[in-house]
């Protein structure tokens, strides 16, 4: 008869620490050529671009702060941020976060990793942290590279804000840093969506593309005439609302709401991804993480989150309106004009005047008289008036405005030629760009508290 006796007991399973799995994940990520190339591109590309633009006569004036790239090095990182928010960051999150789980499905290494690390929870945490680390390195590269390139090529000069005010280099640097930090929030939201797609869709390429697709849909949505409450509830709004840091006073309301919404999305998507990952059966060969149920589990809670956010924000954001009203446009244009007039005065070597002395006002209308002066459109027209000390006559200048649904506007000078009708002004040292010819501005979308 055989007597069965077990061998000396093995210690119970001791999961590998998150720190070790995190290091393992970083090694795997950084060993990929595409990640190395992306790191190189992010740390060198913006610097080369900003430096190249600094040496050209044409400026990317359709990009926010692009028209100031010859004036100061601090415009470079902001132009980079505008481009990054639209294209680079969604694509980077796709490549990094959208692939961090799917790569194991593609390589067939899940079982190997689970046997080695012994804890799906720790694997999830380590993978999310490793993806986040690489993403932060890429974002830091874009920001630092753009700033260094701008400062080296153009110099550390004051930056003209979206209200026309001159920001001292130190102040500009701080606001640039804050703007990039704010853009991290929607980047994290996209990264969370990437993790969710990577877990829920497995080998399906849609998982990889999900952050880029969501970002594209959000961009399209921001171009539509949506109610402000819906606009603010979209997780990508902070890619635009950092503009508010460059107005005076800073438009912090939309910015903070955008950041909070994005962080809520980042948390919700990451938690959902974790939930789906921990429910996965790694011995079932037919299960690669994808499936209708997984997709439903991932999508439905996010739809609910969007609905709740819209429900909370819509009343506070003034109901169904666009948030762009006649008063706000007039105030923004007049304020920016007054600041930029002083800049032009300094360029022309004329005696300085203060904004209080100028008493600039704007009278704006939209389209024909039958159209309500409200909402986005390129048919806004403003007549700015101002006064000079000791002069009885009132100065007037005309602007055509193109106001985007997100509140950003471009004011295009329509004369008189000596003030805002030509892109150059004649200064004692030669021709110089005319700051009043075209300028960017921003209209706060939330109701103005001072208006009661």
């Amino acid at each position, binding site marked *: 008869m055989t007597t069965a006796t077990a061998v000396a007991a093995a210690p119970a*399973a001791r999961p590998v620490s998150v720190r070790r799995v995190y290091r393992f994940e970083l090694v795997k990520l950084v060993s990929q050529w595409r990640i190395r190339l992306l790191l190189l591109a992010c740390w060198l590309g913006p610097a080369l671009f900003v430096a190249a633009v600094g040496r050209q006569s044409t400026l990317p004036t359709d990009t926010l702060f692009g028209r100031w790239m010859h004036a100061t090095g601090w415009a470079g990182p902001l132009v980079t941020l505008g481009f990054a928010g639209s294209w680079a960051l969604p694509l980077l999150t796709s490549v990094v976060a959208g692939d961090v789980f799917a790569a194991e499905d593609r390589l067939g290494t899940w079982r190997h990793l689970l*046997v080695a690390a012994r804890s799906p929870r720790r694997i999830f945490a380590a993978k999310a942290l490793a993806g986040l680390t690489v993403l932060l390195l890429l974002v830091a590269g874009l920001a630092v590279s753009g700033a260094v390139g701008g400062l080296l090529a153009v110099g550390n000069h004051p930056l003209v804000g979206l209200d026309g005010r001159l920001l001292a280099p130190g102040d500009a640097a701080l606001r640039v840093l804050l703007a990039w930090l704010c853009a991290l929030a929607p980047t994290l939201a996209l990264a969370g969506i990437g993790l969710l797609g990577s877990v829920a869709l497995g080998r399906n390429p849609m998982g990889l593309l999900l952050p880029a697709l969501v970002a594209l849909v959000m961009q399209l949505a921001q171009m539509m005439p949506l109610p402000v409450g819906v606009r603010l509830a979209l997780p990508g709004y902070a890619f635009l609302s950092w503009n508010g840091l460059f107005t005076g006073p800073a438009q912090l309301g939309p910015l903070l709401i955008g950041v909070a919404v994005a962080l809520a999305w980042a948390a919700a998507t990451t938690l959902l991804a974790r939930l789906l990952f921990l429910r996965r059966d790694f011995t079932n060969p037919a299960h690669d993480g994808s499936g209708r149920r997984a997709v439903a589990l991932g999508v439905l809670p996010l739809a609910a989150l969007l609905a709740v956010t819209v429900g909370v924000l819509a009343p506070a954001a003034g109901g169904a309106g666009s948030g762009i009203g006649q008063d706000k446009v007039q105030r923004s244009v007049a304020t920016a004009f007054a600041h930029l007039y002083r800049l032009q005065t300094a360029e022309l070597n004329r005696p300085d005047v203060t904004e209080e002395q100028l008493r600039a006002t704007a009278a704006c209308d939209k389209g024909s008289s039958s159209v309500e002066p409200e909402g986005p459109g390129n048919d806004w027209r403003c007549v700015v008036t101002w006064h000079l000390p000791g002069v009885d006559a009132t100065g007037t200048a005309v602007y055509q405005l193109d106001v985007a649904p997100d509140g950003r506007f471009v004011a295009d000078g329509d004369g008189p030629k000596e003030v805002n009708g030509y892109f150059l002004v004649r200064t004692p040292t030669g021709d110089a760009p005319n700051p009043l010819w075209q300028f960017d501005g921003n209209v706060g979308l939330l109701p103005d508290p001072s208006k009661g």
Partner: protein
Amino acid sequence: MDTLLAVRASGITKCFGDVVALDGVDLEVAQGGIHGLVGPNGAGKTTLLGLLLGLAVADRGSLEILRTPVGRALAAPDGVAGFVDGPGLYPSLTARQNLAALAALRGPGAGTAGIDEVLDQVGLTDVADDRANGFSLGMRQRLGLAAALLTRPRLLVLDEPSNGLDPAGKRHVHGVLNRLAAEGTAVVLSSHRMDDLEALCSEVTILATGRVVFSGPLGKLAAENRELDYRIVTSDPAAARRVAAGTPGVRIADDGAERLVVRAPVPALDELVVRLVGAGVAVRELAPVVSPLEAAFLALTDQPQEDVR
């Protein structure tokens, strides 16, 4: 006789939705033994190996690995290593980097074996610094084995480790497994290569549709099995045919010019050999046409032998 057990499974049942992958499976694996798992595709071999590796938990039944009861949480106890569905390797890393990353995962105090040592054991020293994306299937299998050896396992679980191996690679792998078993490591492996299993395993378990149809030593399997076909090459085929025809329990299955194929149980075959020698006929070759394990596998899993032959 006392048997030290590395695995003791009792009444293991595992379902995937409506599919019953394992249905009341009992399994005992002795420490220091090499245990083969055999079964047709879909028999539940990989699921069972996955349970041993802590990749899943059983729906019912009890499982004890290295004397540690496996609970409802994933992860096997320390001392278990191996792979199912092929080794997991990262193609952007070299063989050495793959192993170094795994060793780092375990930490410096985890008592891992040396990377060069395990690479040498599986015969991959020459390609240690090549990226794994250029490796053949056989090389990947050997690197997967090296990764498992890195943790100095007391229970090694391998799914089809002989896939894609050339003769040299096979020799390396067999050598490693035999040495590990001699040192006291229990090895559980699945394979469709009956020759490998017969060469390596002391015991086998045959699974069919999630149930155990045989479990025990290979010798017992051969004894339990009914008649087998044997090929006999002798110095005098005509005389051998006459002797075989006159031996009780022996039937002539095929009669070629140079060789004779007879169907007989083991005792009748022994009698035939005695009679041939007594008649002055030299026996130059005597071998089963289909190995005992393969024959048992085909019989116990209801596979037609003719199709395979």
